[in-house]
């Protein structure tokens, strides 16, 4: 052992000779080889597999997966059976539960990171894969998948619930387009949740902050803001990706609406920026 500390210098050459029992050799192989960019690319599927195991092995996530279609069916059924305006159809009502499902997806996105940070498993992941961007890529892909699955199950259940509520199927030609925009909305919501989780690193703080923003700040204060500002509020913009015809009202009325792709860019921009800030912080912060 050799130390070069100025206060002490100790050299003991005998320590440098490893004591190896030749009868029980250690695993061989050059494990101290240098990592290359192609190694990183090859490791992405492994990171995805790990994230999937983490996601699928928690009861809370399974509960959300069960809860989502129930919520979707219940909301659509309740709206359909209580609607006095019988112009509403199942092909419109099936996306009505999605604002609530977006919140579930956002909360799941938050928990994908914060539960790891709080329980210390993030440290294990970063020890196994010190390349931070790989962890972010795997989590972002998984958050997108969560959004798509929750959105799809909620819409399918919502459609069924609306039919059970006694409304007609309606114009089927718009269903695919509405579903596609809705899926984008939910998937981006999950990614915003992941980004916010990466920034906040605290489950309760991130979820309550996000709910406060979506339901209190945007819903209560946005009506007092001019259109030019409201367009750029994240959940107001995200909400406008949902298209359910003239019977579907956004909570905040805007005189001059932007086109749906523009709202998608604004909502997607929030997802991208929150993930970028989260990634930067993941590189800069110490991990406990």
């Amino acid at each position, binding site marked *: 052992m050799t130390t070069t*500390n100025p206060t002490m210098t100790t050299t003991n050459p005998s320590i440098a000779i*490893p*004591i190896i029992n030749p009868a029980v050799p250690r695993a061989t192989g050059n*494990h101290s080889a240098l990592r*290359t960019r192609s190694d990183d690319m090859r490791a992405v599927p492994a990171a995805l597999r790990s994230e999937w195991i983490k996601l699928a*092995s928690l009861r809370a996530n399974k509960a959300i997966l069960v809860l989502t279609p129930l919520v979707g069916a219940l909301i659509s059924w309740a709206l359909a059976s209580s609607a006095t305006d019988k112009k509403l159809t199942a092909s419109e009502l099936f996306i009505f539960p999605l604002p609530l499902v977006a919140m579930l997806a956002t909360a799941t996105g938050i928990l994908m990171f914060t539960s790891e940070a709080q*329980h210390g498993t993030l440290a*294990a992941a970063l020890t196994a894969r010190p390349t931070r961007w790989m962890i972010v890529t795997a989590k972002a892909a998984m958050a997108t998948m969560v959004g798509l699955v929750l959105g799809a199950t909620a819409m399918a259940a919502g459609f069924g619930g609306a039919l059970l509520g006694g409304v007609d199927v309606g114009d089927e030609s718009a269903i695919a387009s509405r579903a596609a925009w809705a899926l984008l909305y939910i998937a981006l919501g999950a990614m915003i949740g992941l980004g916010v989780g990466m920034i906040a690193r605290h489950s309760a703080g991130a979820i309550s902050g996000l709910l406060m923003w979506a339901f209190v700040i945007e819903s209560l204060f946005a009506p007092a803001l001019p259109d030019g500002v409201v367009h750029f509020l994240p959940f107001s913009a995200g909400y406008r990706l949902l298209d359910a015809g003239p019977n579907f009202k956004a909570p905040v009325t805007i005189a001059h609406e932007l086109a749906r792709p523009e709202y998608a860019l604004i909502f997607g921009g929030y997802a991208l920026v929150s993930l970028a800030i989260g990634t930067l912080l993941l590189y800069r912060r110490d991990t406990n």
Partner: protein
Amino acid sequence: MINVSGLTKRYGERTAVDNLTFDVADGRVTGFVGPNGAGKSTTMRMMVGLTRPDAGEVRYDGVRYSDLQHPARLVGAVLDARCMHPGRTARNHLRAMAAMSGIPVGRVEQVLAEVGLESAVDQRAGGFSLGMRQRLALAGALLGDPQVLLLDEPSNGLDPDGIRWLRNHLSAFAERGGTVFVSSHLIGELSLFADDLVVVGAGKLLAAETVQAITTRQAVTVVAETPQPADLVRLLDAQCFTVQATGDRLVIRGTTKAAVSQLAFENGIRLVELSESAQSLEDSLLDMTSASAEFTSA
């Protein structure tokens, strides 16, 4: 071989780790010792890239941790036994870890058996005792069949049987050529199986030597009882030894029993009792770190 060089970490005004430089040799168990707040955990976190050092670096056979192709196959680390989701079973916890490192899933059952958790594979970690968590964390470190084990206080929460098992396991790992770097504040426990010691206090390196080197340097205390204490004290003072007298009983440091016996005999001083005791390794290390201990009891 692990080379830690000039490692420094500051939190505001406080320097948690101060220019730490030492090596950890292959095939040996190296104990990492220091009082609470000495910077042991911070150092170990910097060794696996979880904490960013303000200066210095750590290399494994010349390669930085973040540049390793298969970190988990070279280094197995347990830095906090609580690092597991309470809602996940032991098997799923390890499956996720194995998948992240591209380790075959069959290895999960092997390491669970190795740490004695075969009967708890499908139990959720939230119901585990601290000792079981320590074992599961160690299983995670062993997943990649690593060449290096970095363990921060691994015996916390283990029962005596578990501590013995851990001690034997780490010794066997080192005997097979593995590198073990293990921190502990239980110096007596560490002295039973560590080959080398790195001693830190207030973030600074105090010693980095073999246990044997520290043991041979340990201070010897001679206890003498004589009906002529004043005469013996005068003679010992003249020889510049440290003497503490309580009645007829003298505690002498810096000399040996033989030397005191010779001195008394040559000067006609009768001795009723003469004994010698060596300071324990624990006492030596506590002496070494006492000046830098952040938290001490009254």
